[in-house]
């Protein structure tokens, strides 16, 4: 008496679990073929270091997309945190606690407001986070009057550029955040709740899950990770300008999609998203290696986005 329904279940053309590593290897292989020095440990480390802030942000974006949302405010959060970090204009680490506290506070406020708007006021995540991005931008520019600047505590420089036992600190941060995120999402009840809510918020409510709380948690996580990424980025660059972090919001969505996430929610993983971010970064570097002009990276990025989304999407039944 076992008969399955005749409607075909949506299948993917390609699963990210296999597709991503393959894509990565293929890219590396081609690059290495054209320019063997591309595969040097030094170069690869450089690329990963450049990718670090994006990797951190994409992990946060993953949380939000999993619960059927989007976070367009992450770049603004990064930039505002960069302003906070340089606001004290000193290399003395005594101000570090204040910087961290302010950044954390900012992230909590932004994330909570984003989450509240989406959950309680039923605002579209696209618009809610877009509005938040604009408001933050205004606040930040108002504070700096369009002329940000100042020195950073040396600890942040270390965060961005330092090394521990030969491994760049920012990479360690990425790995640390990734490990926590991956374990949380795949092994804990909170993680399970996130997937259930993303799959169907109504079903989640009916099994006793507080979908609103879970969703707000994801927005807060995204904001916090954006803040962390901002600190890493400003630490890496060493200074701040008006548009630091610009483009990270769209790039993080793109990276997550390359990593096979479903914009409809309930499907995706932080590891795949990070792989997507690395592939995105690789394509940027690829362009330079292959000898194409720098602007070509935008073209390649565009093509990669569409190709990845097309390959990883589920075909309708």
């Amino acid at each position, binding site marked *: 008496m076992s008969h399955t329904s005749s409607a075909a279940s949506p299948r993917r053309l390609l699963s990210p679990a296999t597709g991503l590593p393959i894509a990565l290897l293929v890219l590396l292989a081609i690059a290495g073929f054209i320019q063997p020095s591309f595969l040097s440990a030094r170069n690869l480390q450089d690329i990963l270091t450049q990718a670090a802030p994006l990797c951190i942000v994409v992990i946060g974006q993953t949380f939000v997309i999993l619960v059927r949302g989007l976070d367009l405010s992450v770049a603004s959060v990064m930039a505002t945190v960069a302003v906070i970090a340089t606001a004290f204009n000193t290399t003395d680490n005594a101000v570090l606690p204040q910087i961290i506290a302010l950044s954390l506070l900012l992230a909590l406020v932004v994330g909570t407001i984003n989450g509240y708007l989406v959950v309680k006021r039923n605002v579209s995540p696209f618009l809610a986070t877009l509005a938040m991005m604009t408001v933050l931008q205004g606040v930040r520019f108002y504070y700096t009057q369009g002329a940000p600047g100042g020195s950073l505590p040396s600890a942040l420089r270390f965060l961005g550029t330092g090394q521990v036992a030969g491994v760049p600190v920012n990479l360690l941060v990425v790995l640390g955040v990734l490990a926590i995120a991956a374990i949380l999402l795949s092994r804990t*009840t909170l993680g399970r709740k996130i997937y259930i809510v993303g799959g169907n918020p*109504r079903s989640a409510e*009916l099994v006793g899950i507080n979908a609103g709380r879970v969703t707000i948690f994801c927005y807060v996580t995204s904001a916090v990770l954006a803040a962390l990424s901002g600190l890493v980025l400003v630490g890496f660059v060493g200074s701040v300008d008006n548009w630091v972090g610009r483009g990270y919001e769209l790039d993080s969505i793109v990276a997550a999609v390359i990593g096979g996430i479903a914009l409809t929610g309930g499907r995706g993983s932080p590891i795949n998203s990070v792989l997507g971010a690395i592939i995105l970064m690789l394509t940027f570097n690829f362009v330079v290696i292959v000898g194409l002009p720098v602007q070509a990276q935008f073209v390649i990025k565009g093509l990669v986005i569409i190709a990845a989304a097309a390959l990883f999407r589920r075909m309708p039944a």
Partner: protein
Amino acid sequence: MYLELTKIEKGFPGVRSLDGVDFSVRGGEVHALVGENGAGKSTLMKVLSGIYLPDAGSIHLDGELRQWRAPADAIAAGIHVIHQELMLFPERSVAENIFLTNPPRTRFGLIDTSAMVERAASILERLGHEIDPRTKVRKLSVADQQMVEIAKALSADARLLVLDEPTAVISGREAELLFDRVERLRKDGVGIVYISHRLEEIFRLSDRITVLKDGKLVATVDTKDVDRDKLVAMMVGRELADIYPPPRKFSGVGKPVLSVRNLKSAPRVKDVSFDLFPGEILGLGGLVGAGRSEVAHTVFGSEASEGGTVELAGDTYHHRTPSVSIQAGIGFVTEDRKGEGVMMLMDCARNISAPDLGSFSEHGFLDSPREEAVAKEEIARFRIAIPGPRYMVRNLSGGNQQKVLLARWSRACHRVLILDEPTRGVDVGAKVEIYKFIRELADSGVAILMISSELNELVGMSDRIVVMREGRTMGTLEKTEISEAAVMQLATAETGKEGRAT
């Protein structure tokens, strides 16, 4: 108008949906199409309306061989299907919905809005209904929306109308109006195919009946030549008596586990009272729209209540939320299995553990091996046809999905189990199993509140029945008083004569 389908074959990977089926409809006839879920009715209608191309067989309209390459071809030939899932545009007006593909135009080729509204009004009038054609469709009741669908078909001069389970979402007065319209259309010479599980309606409306089973034609008979038992036997292939487990001798003794008094919840629940005892199956009957599901949601806590009291084992139970109810031992298998119940993106084990994650975790970390082991037990216990606990639930048949839900809730909640349409969309074999499980659960002490629109099922399964009408409880039927007629009488009784549950 004479449409004839001959020796239709249609298959999909792994399944042969239609196997040499003959079917015909004349203008001015109501031809009922019956059969269990999966029998092939919906596939046959999709072939008839051009959504599917048959693998073999032919379609003749008025003696001419025809082939539909797309639904538009069938529509152009005058064939219209009113699906269960209404295909309307909620933010557009009634008139806009009716005339979307063929609006009246002015001299310059632009749409003549006032003519559109006028014509819509006249079609609706022909159907005996007064809806303002400028109203947005989302503001209409489901029954009125169905009228708009029929009006759409009429605006395009339909010659054949297929009604797919039209009374699944309406009942009572609205259903009467529908039957009235069907009569009018029949007199106008329109051919009507009427698909329904409600045998009373079939016998009332149809001239002929076609029975399908497992993709094959069982028989096409004149309605007057057959009676209910014969029809069911053709559909099901076995005697009615075998379907339901033997009733238990039960009388409402002891203390109720759930006591509901004067429950009120906008917009549908007005005044509901009943008692639920451990170990019994209490049926909650009434017409569609009576507010039964809403009562269930209000008791469970997934809808807000505005008045009245609920007592759980003697203690007042206010501030209900699903989470609190689950903790208190109340489970709820909702009506909408695919939309709300089953988690389509997850495997069987995850579906089963969902309301009770706490018991599968320690310090917040999930115990996957235990989750799997428990799922395996439940799969065995409910005889779920699935290769293993890590397989995706969305690939299962309706009956198996329903079993997963039963496993989920019966595992987590041991005091009260609310079942809303537990066998909707489930094939007969699985139905029988599910009935057995429900009875076993009741025997083990669980109090079961069962909502069902299938009178047969309600009468066959329940120990007692509470009947609702338009948001109020009208009366309770004890074991000896239970019959389909008694339920219907209370479900359609005048509001003046209300009786309260004791």
